[in-house]
């Protein structure tokens, strides 16, 4: 399975391309170059396990194929819905819902660069290559990935469908997958067009960034949910109750034909939904062909400087920095780190998913461990100590602080008259705490206070103090580097190993807290100790030399 085999398949249709005005050899060459470049790119879905990218190694492999197994697993999971019974409208709508979500988010997060490459304009359009050839190359480039993506996610369900429900089911499923892909490509392109039309390129990049973050979180949670879903849903019992808003759900359109065609269900509602499944993708595609030139034109906006918000003086930020930081230099770096964390997309892409996880982690533990009493059993128990788990994000956030997409700009540290690096570190760390860690903890604590009752509020505050101490210890323990000064690609796996002692330390904090709750006034003593520790560590930890 590689690029050249695709090109060889295409070679068979050479004549056909010629007939519709496509310069085949040129298109083939463009496609070849694009695929070579893709081979040197890393998709979001496997971003975490990336290997070091050698300068120009001979063992070049398209990383995309390496990520396909994840889709295969998701497909295998969802094939259970196919096998479950023959309440098709539910099963297949669910399956199509999962597929559409997976494929669409992946298309947006990893293949936006294909749809939105503005270099094409300067590089290809200035050459003697006609427009149709470029458009066709772009289209095939996307189709190539859609084919493998859909193939990976659908191959197991298709097989299961063939065995369980017969050839008719298999064929219908396959045809609908093609329609679904068509719809997804068109919807994605139309979303981009819409965003570009009304906003600027920067907004679109932000949008893509958030979809990437969402995808990363959704995949991790997906494992949990998919397994548990079987406990909640009893497919065979469910009866379909038509509601008007269901017409707005494309997965239902794709579920309906199974009823209409395989169950010979004459229900006019299903018939209507089935019609939508066929008509909407085709109409959308026609619309797409009509709007494509408009998209190309608007793409120019991506290279425009983009109209950022008006100069907001950042008075609030200045006030916060003055309140929390002692020296002026520390305030400067506090504000610098604050802005960088908010603006740098790559940083958000790496860090926000772990923020999402740590919001959810405590609840996963809460509901897998001893919830015999249900939610009503929580007040009075000591399970609120699980809130410590949300501090799992602290080491990974701190680790990420030293990376940046524009790491080369770190020359400023060496050029500027910065004698002492302590203000740099402390300002940055305080910014990370105020901007990322504390808001997260506060949100989590509010939910816990609701679940466990107001009685736990003092304990939650104590836990917050402990997390502050923990943060500063993590910082001292992790290798220090100037903030935003290294490239993301250098992020090493070995750092993961260094995290293990930190996780143990976190459990120790929780344990001490647990013990303290058993002793009368223990919590208050613990709180006093933590306050003292905070007082000392936030002053000393930045100069101390730790291994």
């Amino acid at each position: 399975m590689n690029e050249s085999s695709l090109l060889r398949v295409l070679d068979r249709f050479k004549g056909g391309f010629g007939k519709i005005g496509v310069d085949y050899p040129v298109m083939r060459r463009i496609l070849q170059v694009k695929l070579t470049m893709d081979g040197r790119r890393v998709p979001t879905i496997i971003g975490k396990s990336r290997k070091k990218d050698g300068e120009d190694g001979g063992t070049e492999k398209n990383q995309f194929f390496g990520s396909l197994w994840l889709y295969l697993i998701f497909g295998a999971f969802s094939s259970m819905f196919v096998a479950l019974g023959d309440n098709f409208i539910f099963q297949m709508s669910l399956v199509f819902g999962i597929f559409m979500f997976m494929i669409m988010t992946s298309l947006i997060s990893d293949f936006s660069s294909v749809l939105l490459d503005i270099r094409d304009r300067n590089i290809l359009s200035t050459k003697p290559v006609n427009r149709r050839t470029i458009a066709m190359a772009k289209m095939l480039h996307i189709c190539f990935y859609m084919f493998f993506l859909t193939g990976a996610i659908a191959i197991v369900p298709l097989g299961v469908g063939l065995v369980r429900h017969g050839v008719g089911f298999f064929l219908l499923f396959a045809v609908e997958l093609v329609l679904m892909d068509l719809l997804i490509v068109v919807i994605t392109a139309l979303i981009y067009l819409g965003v570009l039309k009304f906003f600027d390129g920067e907004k679109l990049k932000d949008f893509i960034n958030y979809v990437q973050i969402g995808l990363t979180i959704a995949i991790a949670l997906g494992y949990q949910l998919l397994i548990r879903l079987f406990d909640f849903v009893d497919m065979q019992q469910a009866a379909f109750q038509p509601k008007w808003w269901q017409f707005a759900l494309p997965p239902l359109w794709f579920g309906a034909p199974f009823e209409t065609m395989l169950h010979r269900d004459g229900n006019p509602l299903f018939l209507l939904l089935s019609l939508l499944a066929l008509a909407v993708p085709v109409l959308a595609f026609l619309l797409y062909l009509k709007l494509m030139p408009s998209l190309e034109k608007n793409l120019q906006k991506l290279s425009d400087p983009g109209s950022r918000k008006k100069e907001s003086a950042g008075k609030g930020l200045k006030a916060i920095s003055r309140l929390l930081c002692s020296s002026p230099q520390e305030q400067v770096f506090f504000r610098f780190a604050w802005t960088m964390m908010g603006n740098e997309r790559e940083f958000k892409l790496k860090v926000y998913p772990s923020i999402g996880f740590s919001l959810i982690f405590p609840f996963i533990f809460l509901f897998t461990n001893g919830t015999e009493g249900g939610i009503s059993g929580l007040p009075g128990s000591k399970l609120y100590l699980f809130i410590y788990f949300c501090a799992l994000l602290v080491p990974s956030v701190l680790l990420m602080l030293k990376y940046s997409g524009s790491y080369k700009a770190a020359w400023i540290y060496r050029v500027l008259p910065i004698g002492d690096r302590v203000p740099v570190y402390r300002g940055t760390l305080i910014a990370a705490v105020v901007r990322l860690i504390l808001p997260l903890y506060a949100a989590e604590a509010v939910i816990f206070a609701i679940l466990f009752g107001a009685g736990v509020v003092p304990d939650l505050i104590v836990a917050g103090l402990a997390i502050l101490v923990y943060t500063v210890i993590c910082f001292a323990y992790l290798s220090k580097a100037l903030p935003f000064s290294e490239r993301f690609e250098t992020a090493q796996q070995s750092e993961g190993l260094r995290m293990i002692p930190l996780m143990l330390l976190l459990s120790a904090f929780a344990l001490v807290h647990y013990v303290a709750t058993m002793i009368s006034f223990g919590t208050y003593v613990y709180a006093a100790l933590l306050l003292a520790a905070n007082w000392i560590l936030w002053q000393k930890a930045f100069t101390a030399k730790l291994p």
Partner: protein
Amino acid sequence: MIYNGEGGNMTIDNSPVITLRDLRKKFADSYVLNGIDLDVHPGQIIGYIGPNGAGKSTTVKIMLGLVEGYTGEVRIFGASPSDGGVEYKKRIGYVPEVAEMYDTLTAREYLTFIGELYGLSFMEAESKAKRLMEMFGLRGVFNVRIATFSKGMKQKVLIISSLLHNPDILFLDEPLSGLDANSVMVVKEILALLAAQGKTVFYSSHIMDVVEKISDRIILLDGGRIVADGSFEQLKGQSQEGSLEQIFNQLTGFNEHREIAEQFVAIVQEV
């Protein structure tokens, strides 16, 4: 010694290769180009200058078919970009202002690709690219990804990519940016030799000294109109100024550089 602009022109068919008639282009509500009339003949190096936003790159982009929706007439080798034909682009080389390249490719991959788009065979493109890279002292990085190149190296690759197919017109937008002094001399000499062979060079730059030295003809654009057109000697005669920079300032009505500089320095000294 650097350049002899008049040589070689006589033997070449002198009908214009580029013709612009009343070229106008509107972005949003304002005209960027306000009626450009221009005939360009083979063998000329044209210095195309003007303040930022004067419409220089828009003109070039229209001629390359990158910008549409203009009014007026544009002919390049008799073809019009709005016809949708692309054949004429085979005879054009282009160095854009921003070094946009597929920089995950190696120099070899990129250059052969571009050569092939221009209609060369892979072998031709590769052998030519290799030898041209060698001439620029880049033999050693032929198989290295462009992303790792310095600004000057990227610029050299761009220049090579614009010349692989031996074009008859060259559009160059700040082609010398990032090049060291020695390379600058080489490139200037290359342009002179190409012009002597009847190629047309359309040279946009903000560096007036270079434009003054290499151009046979200087076209000054301001507010979407041509405000001066002629050889450097002619422009000097018209405006009684010593250097192209001064002529530029005078013709674009800019004479407060002294005041601005003084205020600037005053602000700098405030601390």
